[in-house]
């Protein structure tokens, strides 16, 4: 494993600027997630590190060495794609061993066997090694695809939404497993996703990316609690942060246009108060209820204890504990 640095990288495809001056360091043994919507430039960043694309400017360094001009095969990276493509005619074992059998690597057969079995155990597919790759469920196939990368010990694992084709349940299980495996192996991972839950639960640091620019990078907690702008604030949190006129809950600092109210910072009490709202709808999501409120004509969504017994038409008062203020351009203003 090694430290990987992206230094001021820009990349355009025709008129589309995919990445603008991106700088990012992934420390040795670190799990960094790039979080952003479709078209934000996340996959381009991965492909540049892998050498599948060439940057227009800037450089890529792996373990201190400039690899910008190196061919993909010389960079010692392992890529896991969103769509797993396994060799259908080969067994699970042979699929996983494939990369180790490359003529340039010359790994002894006994070592291959040991390594594949070890990784298969980590991924809970050790009993499937003799199966044809096509005799597996979708979740198992994706684990084989991840396993194929894990048998190698590259400088960095590059993962492009590897869980997005799986169903919700399996995704939940693999999230925890992947994180555990990363810690056990001390692996360096750059993981690309548009799913905030994946980024929050697995990454040691999250880079929020939008329109080819890195907006903020930090630990999940830093990004959640201390977003630099309204866009980042809205990317994380379920239900999403409520963005409202700055003075709605009382005095706002100079320059503040909007106030962001996270659901856990809103205290709801029965009956009207300084800030009154009307319950429009209650969504029972099981472990928690979402209250949809009308606050001076603006929609506000907040959490309530399922046993609180709020119903449509109830009038409630709201208090905001930790306001996050933003200026007219969405940038944070100190409270």
């Amino acid at each position, binding site marked *: 494993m090694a430290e990987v640095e992206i230094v001021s990288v820009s990349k355009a495809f025709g008129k589309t600027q995919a990445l603008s001056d991106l700088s990012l360091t992934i420390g040795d043994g670190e799990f960094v997630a790039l979080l952003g*919507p*479709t078209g934000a430039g996340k996959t381009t960043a991965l492909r540049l590190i892998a050498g599948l694309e060439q940057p227009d400017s800037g450089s890529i360094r792996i373990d201190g060495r400039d690899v910008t001009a190196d061919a993909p095969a010389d960079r010692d990276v392992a890529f896991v794609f969103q769509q797993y493509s396994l060799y259908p005619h080969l067994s699970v074992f042979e699929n996983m061993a494939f990369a180790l059998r490359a003529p340039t690597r010359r790994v002894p057969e006994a070592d291959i066997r040991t390594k594949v079995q070890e990784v298969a155990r980590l991924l809970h597919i050790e009993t499937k090694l003799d199966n044809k790759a096509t005799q597996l469920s979708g979740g198992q196939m994706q684990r084989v695809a991840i396993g194929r990368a894990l048998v190698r010990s590259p400088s960095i694992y590059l993962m492009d939404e590897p869980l997005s084709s799986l*169903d*919700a*349940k399996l995704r*939940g299980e693999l*999230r*925890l497993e992947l*994180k*555990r495996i990363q*810690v056990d192996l001390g692996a360096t991972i750059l993981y690309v996703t*548009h*799913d905030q*839950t994946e980024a*929050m*639960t697995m990454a040691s640091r999250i880079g929020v990316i939008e329109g080819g620019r890195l907006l903020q990078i930090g630990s*999940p*907690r830093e990004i*959640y609690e201390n977003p630099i702008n309204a866009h980042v604030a809205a990317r*994380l*949190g*379920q239900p999403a942060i409520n963005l409202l006129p700055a003075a709605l809950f009382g005095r706002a600092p100079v320059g503040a246009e909007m106030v962001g109210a*996270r*659901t*856990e910072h809103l205290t709801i009490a029965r009956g009207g108060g300084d800030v009154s709202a009307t319950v429009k*709808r209650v*969504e*029972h*999501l*099981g*472990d*928690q209820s*979402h209250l*949809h409120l009308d606050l001076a004509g603006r929609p506000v969504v907040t*959490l309530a204890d*399922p046993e609180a017994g709020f119903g449509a038409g109830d009038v409630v008062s709201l208090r905001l504990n930790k306001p996050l203020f933003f200026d007219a351009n969405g940038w944070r203003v100190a409270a």
Partner: protein
Amino acid sequence: MAQIKVEALDKSFGSFHAVKSASFTVEDGQFLCLLGPSGCGKTTTLRMIAGLELPTAGTIRLDGEDVTMNRASARDIAFVFQLFALYPHMNVRRNIGFPLKCEGIGAAERDRRVVEAARILRISHLLDRSVSGLAGGDRQRVALGRAIVRKPKCFLMDEPLGALDTEMREAMIHELRALHDRLGATTVYVTHDQLEAMAMADRIAVMNNGVVEQVASPRDIYDRPASLFVADFIGSPPMNFLPFRGGLQTGAEAIRLGERDVAIPAAREAMAETELVLGVRPEHVRFTDRGMVRGEIYGTEYLGTTQIVTVTTSYGALKARSPSSRSFRTGETVGLDFRPDTLSIFDKASGRAIRTALHEGVVHG
């Protein structure tokens, strides 16, 4: 508007029994979700209500009238598909108005209704745009416009948000529910996404292997699952299951789990000694040193407002939801106990929930 009544509906495709004696009623103006994994028979059930498939047995009543053998076009329903096909050579206005044109409705009336539908869906500004340049969400709004412009008795929707990405889907969930509240049309909505169903439905019918396992409000489905399958399918993360061997007497208020007694809602039926399963929702697991189950922290997942804590125990991995302010160390030993009044007990062999005081609570929704 209309009531839909499905009675003992059966459908076989050759030797494959897709739907097995499904019965449920959708009241006038209600939003019902048919929820289940792929292959459970939910889409087949929907297509039978629409008249796109004929049932092998059973009846379908629309407002009391038996329509089981009626053609789809004679049922006055609108179907919204997952893959919405819009006419690429027509603009938004003509796409929405097309069903009315087919019905021979005059241009003036047609335009009035298209404008009305566009206003409801908030796409008035797009009416003269070509559909080919539209974003996914707007294309789905146009597809919905084509359904609502006909003012049908009911809407049938087959995973209409399945093709959209996460963020757009969340926005559309609220939009669709708000649209339903404005129109008040009876709606049957098929999805495999439990969060979608929980967020939108008045009632949910959970299907598994062609069988309707439970029909109830989202709250009841979550708090009082009728079977192991329902308890496992609903909830993220799903309910924890602790297998144990034991019997129950009517009125019993505890079970024996290992060396300890665990308080449960009072049993309302007796069970001879057999394999049972204790069901605990992650938010009802509490950390306490005096806990009845001990385990080791396997990992935590930070979610902002809360965190999911996975604990390895002799009953397998258990998941707990805890405020994110509390910190846990991997490998740390912890004690767990469970909130007694919320627990479910299942018969392992049949998967059926055993009747307890839990099922006598207030009926919600």
